[in-house]
C-alpha cells in the first residue's frame, strides 16, 4: 500500500517537474538586446570621464552605467543615431569617436588630406629639382680655362 503511494507521489512529482519545465520553456523571454548589440553602439562612443577609452571596453562604474543606458534605449526602440544624439546632448561632442562635420570640425576632415597632398607635392618638386641639377651640369659646356691659371701653368712649365 505504502509502496503504491510512494510510486504515485514520485510519478506526480516527475510529471509536475516536467510540466513546469515545459512552462519555463514556453514562458516569453525578455527580448532585450544582447551584449554584442549594446557594445556595437558603445564602441562608437567614448567615456566622457576617462580619456580615449571607448565605452565598450571601459571598466569604470560610470561606463557600466552608460552601457546600461544604451541597453535601456535599445529596449525602448531607439536607433543607433538617436542614442548617439542623446549622448551628445547629455555629455557633449567629446563622447563621439569622430567629430561631427560642422563648424571648425571641418578642419579635422580637410587639413590632414591637404597636408598630405602638399607634402607629396613638395617631395615631388624636391625630387625633380634634384634630378635636374646633375643633368644640367653635364649638359653645360666646359667653362673656358681661366686666364690666370693658364698663365700660371705656362710659367711653371717654363720654370721646369
Amino acid at each position, binding site marked *: 500500500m505504502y509502496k503504491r503511494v510512494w510510486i504515485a507521489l514520485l510519478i506526480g512529482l516527475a510529471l509536475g517537474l516536467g510540466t513546469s519545465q515545459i512552462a519555463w520553456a514556453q514562458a516569453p523571454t525578455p527580448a532585450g538586446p544582447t551584449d554584442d548589440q549594446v557594445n556595437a553602439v558603445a564602441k562608437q562612443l567614448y567615456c*566622457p*570621464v576617462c580619456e580615449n577609452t571607448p565605452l565598450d571596453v571601459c571598466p569604470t562604474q560610470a561606463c557600466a*552605467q552608460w552601457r546600461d*543606458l544604451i541597453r535601456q534605449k535599445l529596449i525602448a526602440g531607439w536607433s543607433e543615431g538617436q542614442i548617439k544624439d542623446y549622448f*551628445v*546632448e547629455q*555629455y*557633449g561632442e567629446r563622447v563621439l569617436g569622430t567629430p561631427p562635420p560642422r563648424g*571648425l570640425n571641418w578642419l579635422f576632415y580637410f587639413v590632414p588630406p591637404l597636408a598630405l597632398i602638399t607634402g607629396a607635392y613638395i617631395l615631388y618638386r624636391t625630387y625633380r629639382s634634384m634630378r635636374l641639377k646633375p643633368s644640367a651640369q653635364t649638359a653645360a659646356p666646359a667653362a673656358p680655362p681661366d686666364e690666370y691659371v693658364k698663365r700660371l701653368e705656362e710659367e711653371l712649365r717654363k720654370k721646369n
Partner: protein
Amino acid sequence: MTDQNTDSTPSAVPPRKPAWGRLAAWFGLFLLLGIVAIGLVSTQQGPVGIGRQVPDFTLETFDGQSVALAEQRGKVVVVNFWASWCKPCEQEAADLEAAWRYYAPRGDVVFVGIAWTDTESASLEYIDRFDITYPNGPDLGTKISQDFHTTGVPETYIIDQTGKLAYKKFAPFTSLSEIRAAIDPLLEP
C-alpha cells in the same frame, strides 16, 4: 672695366612676380596654427580663480525648474559638482544637505548641485539616497563644467553676492563645520 661689366649685365631680367600660391600656403599654415593655439589656450586654462567673475549658467533641474546664476545676485551661491559614481562625493553629500538645511531659513544662501557626466536614473537614486532637497540638475553637454574648467568631482565653488568666486574646494568636505567656515565669512551678521 668694372663699370663696363656692370653696364653690360642684362637689364632685361623680368621682375619677380609675387608667389601667390606660396603666400596662400603660409597664410593657411599660420591661420591653422592660430586656431590650434586658441584651442590649446582655452583647454589648458585652469579653473575659475578666486576673486574672478564666475561664468553665468542656467541649470535645468531634474524636477523641471530653472536656476540661473545671474538671478542669484545678492546671495551666496554654493555650486557643487558631483556624480553618482563618485565615491568621495558620497562622503560630503549628507554634510552639504545639512548645511543647506541650516542656511535655508535665512534665504540669502543658495545651494545648487550639478550632476556631472551622470545618468539621470543614477542621479535621482543618489539624490533620493542622501535625501537631497536643494536644486540639482544635469550638466547638459558638460557645458557648465567646461565653463568652470572643472578637473573632476567633487568640486565646490562658493560665489559671493557680487557673482565673484570667494572659495573653491577640489575635494569632499569632511564636516558641516568646514562648510560653515567657508560660507559664514561671506554673510552679514
